């Protein structure tokens, strides 16, 4: 079967035969399947969502990178056997660009094993968490957190859920209190003169659940969740109207959520609610920490404390949301395209010139980089590097074009040609970045934040489009400029 396919390909589609892509792609597909299944059938429980979910991929990433490298090396042994361009075989107009495209396919498909694994994990997570209503759970947890104090700094006017008018009124009352105390104090050396504690006390609310307003958790689209003020009003009503059962029910719901996600805590809703309602004016008697115990410097030991690793809940919710969104966002795809494009360009440049010229260009590019760095460092102007690179790009371009067209200096023209080719992908983004910098400076001169320079805004918002255009533009340049020039270079005589 394989022999028959080989015989057919070598005769009818020599390019496909030589790239071995017909055999390579099924192998790559098979490896992708294995990675997907490994990800899908990986042991799963909800605690994974907050318990170093990402970091546990490290081994898989390393394995996938090694596998990619191994696959590419073996493939290169076959692929590099024949080079019709160097052998001087007649080539159709689109032969080289088709070859380049096939190389891109190879590099793109072989570098994404890890992503397939991740896709498997995501799909499994999606299935396992499909019943979870994240908005509902976040709302439940946020309501419960109106009865759990986790930070003293939450008891501040600016964090209050009161309206702005109510906050101002409260602040006025506190100011009056301050003046009264100050006037009453005849001792000029009194601490009350020191503004710091006074200012602090002006902002501080009483340590009571009545003044506590916390929106602990959020979903990506905040419009979908119940706002903090509404949650606070409801909690406030329950407290003032003595709805102990409602509070207990809510805390029990939260406790169940913590248990479901296996989030470490020692919350006891029953005793917590009992203490809350027994306290004068719902005064807070427990500030929950995020760890099981806290280290006491004075006692030199860990002191047990009330705790909830509350950030784990947010991590879990975030993770579920991310899984539902999927990780194949355009940025990752674009990055992979750039990787595949660059690798294909590097390999294609090796195919289009001689080994001697290619290595000379490689070593030479390092030397040019060092030279540019030295010039920049000695002149102490970082911007100079950019202008130097552009200047070199233009010079290399001209040199390569003129020398190849006039059949002069084959070695030098080959090196210049490669340098131009390797730089091509970075030129447009560099120009764009420089323009953006320029307009950013103009933008920074505009006072206030309300107005911004429209050119800067446009440049800043269209980076993606530029990067996409850059790929297409370089691809077209390869077709109409670089590849015909490479053929010409191949036919040129040495000195």
């Amino acid at each position, binding site marked *: 079967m394989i022999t028959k396919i080989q015989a057919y390909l070598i005769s009818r589609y020599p390019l496909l035969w030589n790239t071995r892509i017909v055999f390579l792609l099924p192998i790559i597909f098979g490896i992708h399947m294995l990675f997907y299944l490994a990800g899908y059938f990986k042991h799963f429980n909800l605690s994974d969502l907050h318990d170093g979910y990402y970091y546990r991929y490290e081994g898989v990433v390393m394995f996938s990178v090694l596998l990619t490298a191994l696959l590419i090396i073996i493939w290169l042994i076959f692929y590099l056997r024949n080079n019709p361009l160097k052998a001087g075989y007649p080539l159709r107009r689109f032969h080289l660009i088709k070859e380049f495209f096939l190389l891109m396919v190879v590099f793109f498909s072989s570098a994404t094993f890890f992503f397939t694994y991740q896709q498997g994990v995501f799909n499994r997570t999606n299935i396992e968490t499909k019943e979870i209503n994240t908005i509902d759970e976040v709302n439940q947890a946020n309501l419960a957190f109106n009865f759990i104090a986790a930070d003293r700094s939450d008891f501040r006017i600016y964090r209050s859920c009161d309206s702005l008018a109510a906050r101002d009124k409260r602040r006025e009352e506190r100011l009056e209190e301050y003046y009264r105390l100050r006037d009453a104090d005849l001792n000029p050396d009194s601490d009350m003169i020191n503004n710091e504690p006074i200012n602090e006390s002006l902002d501080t609310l009483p340590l009571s659940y009545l003044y506590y307003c916390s929106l602990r958790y959020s979903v990506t689209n905040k419009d979908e969740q119940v706002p903090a003020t509404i949650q606070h009003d409801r909690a406030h009503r329950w407290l003032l109207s003595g709805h102990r059962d409602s509070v207990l029910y809510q805390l029990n719901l939260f406790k169940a959520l913590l248990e479901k996600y296996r989030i470490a805590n020692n919350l006891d809703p029953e005793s917590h609610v009992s203490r809350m309602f027994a306290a004068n004016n719902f005064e807070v008697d427990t500030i929950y920490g995020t760890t099981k115990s806290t280290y006491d410097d004075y006692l030199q030991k860990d002191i047990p404390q009330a705790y909830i690793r509350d950030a784990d809940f947010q991590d879990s919710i975030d993770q579920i949301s991310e899984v539902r969104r999927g990780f194949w966002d355009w940025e990752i795809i674009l990055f992979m395209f750039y990787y595949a494009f660059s690798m294909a360009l590097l390999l294609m440049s090796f195919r289009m010139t001689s080994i001697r010229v290619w290595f000379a260009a490689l070593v030479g590019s390092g030397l040019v980089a060092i030279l540019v760095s030295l010039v920049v460092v000695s002149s102490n102007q970082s911007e100079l590097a950019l202008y130097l690179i552009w200047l070199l790009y233009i010079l290399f371009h001209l040199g390569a074009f003129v020398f190849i067209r006039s059949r002069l200096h084959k070695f030098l023209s080959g090196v210049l040609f490669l340098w131009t080719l390797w730089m091509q992908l970075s030129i447009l983004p560099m120009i764009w970045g420089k323009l953006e910098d320029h307009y950013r400076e103009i933008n920074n001169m505009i006072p206030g934040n309300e107005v911004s320079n429209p050119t800067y805004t446009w440049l800043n918002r269209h980076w993606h489009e530029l990067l996409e255009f850059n790929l297409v533009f370089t691809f077209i340049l390869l077709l109409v400029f670089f590849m015909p020039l490479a053929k010409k270079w191949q036919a*040129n005589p040495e000195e």
Partner: protein
Amino acid sequence: MQERFDQQLKEVHSHYESGDLDLGLRRLLDCAIETENAEVFRAVLDFCEYLESQAVQAATTIEKVDILIKMMAKVGAYYRENGSDEVISLAHVGKKYRNSGFAIKDINFDLKLGSIMGLVGENGNGKTTLLRLIAGELKADKGKVAYPFAAAQDEYALKSKLIYIEQRIPRWHGSLMDNLIYTTAHYHENWKDHRLWAEIMIARLGLRPYRNLTWGRISSGYRTRFELAKTLLRRPKLLLLDEPLANLDIVAQQTILQDLKYMANSLSAPFAMILSSQHIYEVEKVSDSILFLKQGAAQWDKKNQADSDSSLILELEVDVNRETLKNALSPLNLQKIQYNGGVFLVHFSSNHSGAQVLSELAKHEVEVHYFRNISQSSRRFFIQ
């Protein structure tokens, strides 16, 4: 063209009739290649398989050959417009190496399709440099190298028809057949089964028993032949061979050169050829012209230069010493005797012939083991 093809077919029949089966098969394959017809290729390859089988009978063989000849006569030779007959023209071409100071000086010649030129000279006298200049690998400092057959083509297209085989043949990777088919696929795009082309060329060069081997398992002589097969599949217009005979045994040298001459004169895909070699006599046998290079300059051009020197020069291997030989040949106005590695080089003034020399030697009962008249051969320029 059809007349020439019919003549070729008759020639095949007569080779078989006279029992020269090997030459008959080679010419039969030449005729098959001239047709460029897949059916003919298949039939001829079936015939090759039959020849390799145990059941070969002379009468059946001739019968089969006649059937093939009829088939090919019906199909006819493939006609292709070959454009200009003139393939290459060198006018006052010169090239100097800056480091060594060595230079190729004022080379002039032109070649037409089907013609063969031998390039001879001692080592280091510029044969390879001249071949590389013609192949477009080096740039001439002076003069002009023109390729009239490819006047309207770009340099790359020209290079694909201008094939230069170096002395040291680069290694082939993968199977030999795959290499040949891959090459064919680039040159015979309209064909569906390129394996047939590769098979027919392999058969033509007598490589069928080795076609399933790999590069590492064949000798250097067969590597040269496989490289030639690949080159011929590329349909060259100008074939440049640098010392192609170096790795071949004596029989193969003569066969390959004769085969190349046949193929260069092909009806459907003729080509011109320049070959450099130290095997002067073999090269002279097949060449239409000879260029002798000495220190980068054309010292003698057999085709273009009228030979002013009409003295008789002979190579002799005899079982007597110099004095005896001198005495034996003294009646013939002997000018000079040189001893060169077991062979005497004997110079006479004009008006003598080789037959007279042999007659004198016979009179003096001198046993002659080897005799060659090199008066018109470039061999005489190698004499110190």
